[in-house]
């Protein structure tokens, strides 16, 4: 018997008992909808965070710190021995945990790391504290702000304009959307190509102002802070002024560096690079490393929710077992006739398994479709509601691969549920079936 004929036969048998089939499909449908929704929340959040990773800086970069243990009272196993040859900087943070000293990095570290294969560039992470930002045409209105650096080529999510370029010789800056109206622009487009003035005071108490051109306005974001970003030219100007008058010991000492690696580096290439850094006494963390705890939590929550969804599926699969046992006993004579007319055991087994598979197929397809509709509605309510401030965040997302996996899993569960009744059908003795009244 051909597969298409088996399929048609299984399908028509399901249609013969519409009410019973419907109820069994509904049970699977509920399971599929639940599984799809629980998965959808996880995927929605992860997709959003992935999209926002660009706002944390160059995705092909490593944040590098010295590998020495810190003498923090928090999470420490005691005091670390003092080493007079290590460069130390004292970081801020004299909270209840006490301040801790961090081993700093210097020019020679930059040179050393630059020579590691696959590293494109290494820059220190400056801690710049500019005094104010103001529009050059309206110097009366000055605002406090914070300024970040970009590394390599930047890929911040821009509303208008483009990212500041490190290869540009003129000082460039991008501002977040929240600065637009404060600085006196009607909209983001107006801000492009305007000149801003940045005020700075150094350790000697001298003040100076610097010019920069706005090249882009950054989209609102959940991850990363709302701050301006300057290109290398601007940052270097500001840093060389700010570091004038620092104690000699602190000059040219940085808490961390950022290394940009080749954008085509494979995953193994990256872990090799990280291993090399560890061997040389550094810690190199990717952006993904930095947010991996968030992912771990989302995954854990998703798994717990999925687990509940799977329980509903297990319950539904008992519905399939029951339905098929009924179908097998109702069709005893038909099975006997088909076996008498030369149908093999394997084909009889396939026929009844297909019934189960079809129930699984329809249940999961309808469930996923319904979950998608729920997703649309929920997303449109939430993006205009409590998630209004996070453009681009859809609470529920249903990537094709996940939906495919859900369909395959449910069909597999349905097949397993159908196996017992299908085996019963295949084992039936044609004579007994033919004598059956």
């Amino acid at each position, binding site marked *: 018997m051909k597969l298409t004929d088996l399929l048609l036969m299984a399908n028509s048998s399901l249609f013969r008992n519409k009410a019973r089939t419907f109820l069994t499909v509904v049970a699977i449908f509920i399971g599929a909808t639940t599984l799809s929704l629980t998965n959808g929340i996880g995927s929605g959040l992860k997709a959003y965070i992935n999209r926002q990773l660009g706002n944390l800086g160059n995705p092909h970069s490593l944040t590098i710190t010295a590998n020495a243990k810190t003498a923090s009272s928090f999470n420490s196993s005691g005091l670390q021995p003092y080493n007079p040859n290590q460069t130390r900087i004292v970081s801020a943070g004299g909270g209840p945990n006490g301040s801790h000293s961090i081993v700093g990095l210097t020019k020679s570290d930059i040179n050393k790391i630059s020579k590691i294969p696959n590293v494109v560039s290494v820059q220190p992470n400056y801690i710049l504290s500019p005094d104010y930002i103001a529009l050059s045409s309206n110097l009366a209105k000055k605002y406090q702000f914070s300024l970040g650096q970009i590394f390599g080529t930047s890929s911040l999510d821009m509303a208008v304009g483009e990212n500041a370029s490190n290869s540009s010789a003129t000082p460039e800056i991008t501002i977040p959307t929240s600065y637009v109206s404060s600085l006196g622009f009607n909209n983001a487009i107006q801000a492009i190509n305007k000149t801003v003035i940045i005020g700075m005071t150094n350790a000697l108490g001298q003040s100076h102002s610097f010019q920069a051109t706005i090249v882009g306005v950054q989209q609102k974001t959940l991850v990363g802070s709302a701050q301006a970003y300057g290109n290398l030219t601007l940052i270097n100007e500001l840093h060389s002024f700010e570091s004038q008058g620092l104690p000699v010991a602190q000059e040219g000492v940085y808490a961390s560096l950022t290394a940009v690696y080749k954008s085509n580096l494979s995953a193994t290439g990256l872990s090799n690079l990280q291993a090399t850094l560890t061997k040389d006494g550094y810690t190199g963390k990717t952006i993904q490393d930095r947010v991996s705890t968030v992912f771990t939590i989302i995954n854990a929550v998703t798994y717990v929710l999925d687990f509940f969804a799977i329980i509903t599926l297990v319950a539904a699969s008992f519905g399939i077992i029951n339905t098929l046992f009924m179908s097998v006993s109702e069709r005893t004579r*038909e099975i006997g006739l088909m076996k*008498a007319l030369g149908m093999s055991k394997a084909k009889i087994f396939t026929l009844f398994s297909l019934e189960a598979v079809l129930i699984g197929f329809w249940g999961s397809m309808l469930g996923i479709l319904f979950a998608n509709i729920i997703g649309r509605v929920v997303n449109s309510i939430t993006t205009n509601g409590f998630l209004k401030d996070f453009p681009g965040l859809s609470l529920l997302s249903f990537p094709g691969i996940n939906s495919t996996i859900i369909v395959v899993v449910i069909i597999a569960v349905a097949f397993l549920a159908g196996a017992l009744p299908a085996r019963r059908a295949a084992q039936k003795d044609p*004579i007994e079936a033919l004598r059956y009244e």
Partner: protein
Amino acid sequence: MTSIIKTNSLTKIYGKKSSAFTALDNINLDIKQGESIAVVGKSGSGKSTLMHLLALLDSPSSGSVIINNVDSHKLSIKKMDLLRNQNFGFVFQQFFLSPHESVLDNVVLPLKIAGISRSERKKRGLEVLEAVDLADKSKDKAVNLSGGQKQRACIARALINNPTIIFADEPTGNLDSITGQMIENLLFQLNKDKNITLLIVTHDDDLANRCQRQIYIKDGSLIKEQ
């Protein structure tokens, strides 16, 4: 004439030990190609049991069935399925039609099992329905046929694979005498025109006498052959 089915001390015992019941006892038969044979006996004498064994639907407790000179013990399950599907035609004691499917769909079931294409099935299905004079009912649901029409549909189903032998268990048992007569004529015509071997189980003497040979069974034993 070549033998199509032979039996060798064929015995069937149901149940075990104290409850054992010998339904067939030491039956030796030789059925030739193109013969028409009646199996006659009272109810419960073992006629259906014999037919099921000859048609490879059941296996004997001892002795053997030899089909086309091959001992059935040596045939694989697959080969037996294939024989029943391709070479045997069945008319059972009950109709075994799927009530809510069309007459055509019911009749082409053996071809469907054989994996023959839809168009070929339809063509051959209409041919055999024509032969049993049911072509005009091909699209009707089986449940809406009269008793005689149902039995003709069953004969059409038995014919569709061009069998070498037809096993018919009480083919006229449920029919009035005129309809029964019509079914009998149909079977003997097939026997004459297409040289199809007939093995007819019956307790009707008239039908038995129309066959070339009669086998009388009593309490599972062959008592007379003529």
